[in-house]
């Protein structure tokens, strides 16, 4: 199924615009895209007329030029006819915003649309959804542009069964400086489902991580999802809603009573290296970490800090999240010690977590990270940087990134998210080193790397 028409349409018809009600969803979508995105946009309403001095076409058939994408925002009962007209016109695919299908009990109506589209090989997203935000290409969310917070163009492909969660997650991504390559609200997923979108984002060159918010799968859909996930070369992150036990009332078998829906989901995701995030906050951290390090690690963490307290906090969080803090080898400790500034040689603690103290300078941190990276017991390094220390320069981000890149082991940094430290943060991020704004966040990023490895 080619979804280019949905993610990068050259032209689009918005069906169901109102000439009287300016905040109608279709009007919001039309106004957002017309002359604002590189997509030629046409307004359609059977009554015709004008919208903002542009022609309103009475049907898609009236549009003289070819149309790639139809955005359908008419009442549910009119949707089958409109879809038929779109197919007749040769439109390549649709986003069906309209609600009033299986979510309200009208499964037959939904099936009618699905069958119609399937016969014509006509892909559509929805119904009952926000549709697609494809940065610098198209935006079918019926949320006014001035209200929504859009993340920048980036490398996360995000798919959500809930439009509300999608929009909220975009706010979180934007807040952490994470960009998306595409965000899709699939609603009732009557045609395009998670499995199709794994395939789309897998072949999309701009996507490095594919993330999902999943409420539930239909019959055997979970198995299909796993099959696609296994064939996919990019890390996949999932956030599952509906974790409380259900459907296990019939307890005549021990197995059925211990293998509730969520336990099955969670264990199977882990079995197949799909990184399951426990919370929305984790989802954000996981996406950032895996976009930098798609291969993951086995969770043996070396910690470098300039404050003993931060090292202990991080070690505690690692323990909580199932990450190990192994002892470093004597050789590693000796190599670090022999190169430390004389001022801190007697006060630095070189047991994992390493405390270089507030008197250390850039070179000490670089030295510690370099040799920790070479320690065979360590496969991921957390650098907890407190830029208040006088010995730490604004160059530390770029310099440390260089060390990490030379040594080849994942490095994750914690830097407080303050404007005055932006230069440090950018020093890391421009070099694809993930930066967390809290100690916990840094630990969650390390957890992500472990979760996308075989359990």
């Amino acid at each position, binding site marked *: 199924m080619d979804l280019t028409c949905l993610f990068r349409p050259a032209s689009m018809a918005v069906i169901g615009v109102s000439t009287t009600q300016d905040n109608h969803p279709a009007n919001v979508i039309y106004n957002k895209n017309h002359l604002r995105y590189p997509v030629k946009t046409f307004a359609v309403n059977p009554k015709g007329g004008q919208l903002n001095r542009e022609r309103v076409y009475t049907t898609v058939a009236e549009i003289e030029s070819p149309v790639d994408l139809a955005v359908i925002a008419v009442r549910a009962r009119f949707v089958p006819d409109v879809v038929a007209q779109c197919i007749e016109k040769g439109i390549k695919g649709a986003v069906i915003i309209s609600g009033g299908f299986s979510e309200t009990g009208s499964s037959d109506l939904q099936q009618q649309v699905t069958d119609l589209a399937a016969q014509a090989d006509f892909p559509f997203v929805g119904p009952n959804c926000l549709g697609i935000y494809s940065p610098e290409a198209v935006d079918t969310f019926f949320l006014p542009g001035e209200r929504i917070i859009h993340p920048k163009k980036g490398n996360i492909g995000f798919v959500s069964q809930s439009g509300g969660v999608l929009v909220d997650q975009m706010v979180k991504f934007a807040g952490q400086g994470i960009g998306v390559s595409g965000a899709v609200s699939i609603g009732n997923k009557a045609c395009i489902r998670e499995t199709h979108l794994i395939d789309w984002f897998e072949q999309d060159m701009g996507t490095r991580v594919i993330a999902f918010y999943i409420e*539930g*799968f*239909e*019959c*055997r*859909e*979970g*198995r299909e999802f*796993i099959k696609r996930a296994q064939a996919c070369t990019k890390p996949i992150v999932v956030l599952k809603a509906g974790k409380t036990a259900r*459907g296990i009332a019939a*307890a*005549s*078998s*021990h*197995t*059925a*009573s*211990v*293998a509730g*829906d969520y*336990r*099955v*989901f969670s*264990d*199977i995701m882990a*079995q*197949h290296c799909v990184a399951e995030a426990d919370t929305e906050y984790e989802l954000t951290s996981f996406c950032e970490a895996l976009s930098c390090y798609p291969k993951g690690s086995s969770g043996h963490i070396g910690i470098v800090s300039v404050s003993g307290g931060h090292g202990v906090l991080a070690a505690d969080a690692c323990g909580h999240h199932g990450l190990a803090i192994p002892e470093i080898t004597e050789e590693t400790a000796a190599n670090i010690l022999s190169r430390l500034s004389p001022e801190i040689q007697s006060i630095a603690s070189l047991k994992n977590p390493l405390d270089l103290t507030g008197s250390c300078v850039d070179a000490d941190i670089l030295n510690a990270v370099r040799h920790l990276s070479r320690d065979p017991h360590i496969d991921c390094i957390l650098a907890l940087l407190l830029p208040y220390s006088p010995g730490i320069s604004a160059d530390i981000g770029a310099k440390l990134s260089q060390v990490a890149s030379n040594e080849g082991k994942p490095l994750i940094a914690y830097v407080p998210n303050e404007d005055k430290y932006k230069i440090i943060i950018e020093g890391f991020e421009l070099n694809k080193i993930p930066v967390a704004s809290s100690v916990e966040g840094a630990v969650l990023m390390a957890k992500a790397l472990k979760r996308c490895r*075989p*359990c």
Partner: protein
Amino acid sequence: MLTPRIIQIIESARPAGWILEPMAKEILAAQKLTVPKSVLTDSVDSAAQFLAACDGPVVLKAVSPLILHKTEHQAVVTHVKDPETLASHMTRLLSLNGCDQVLVEEMVSGIEVLVGAKNDLQFGPVVVLGLGGTSVEIYNDTAIRLAPVTPADVTSMVKSLGARPIFEGYRGRPGVNMDALTRMIVDFSHLIMDLEPWFESIDLNPVICDPDRCVAADARILLLPETNYPS
């Protein structure tokens, strides 16, 4: 692949909704899983002959389509060592509701493990591993994997359990034979893929594991309601 005999067993179990233990074990044995040596009989004499031929004690189990949970009906007698005890229990079990025959089995001992399967709506057949017995639901210390599984999956299942030290042997006690357990779970996972159209859940509880082998001491196969069967 399922043999015509297995299909026949399933078909005949449809009305009851579950497969009687001797037939369930026949299905397991056909898939090369180890089950205890046994005789299915209503005769005290043949039961006594079986006991005499066994090295140790035997277990008696009432076989009745009306008794799904045997312990709740005192339908299992363990540690039967002499012909007199055997005879009196045989008589009692044969008087239980619906019981025409008694399954007389060699008694095996070792670590009790649960090997189970669920036909999950979203994922299809999944395998479950945990410590056996009735406490499995209390501790909920289980590992679940999508079937069919690989030997590496079985290793990771054991590693993920809180009860891992028991499997591996601790405080001088022997653990389970991991090769035997692995082989059993891998074979079982392929069996449940074949049984996907019919089964709802399967409990092999307990599977009794010692340093030499893993034996499915009990087996219960619950079938899907008939409306869900393939046509």
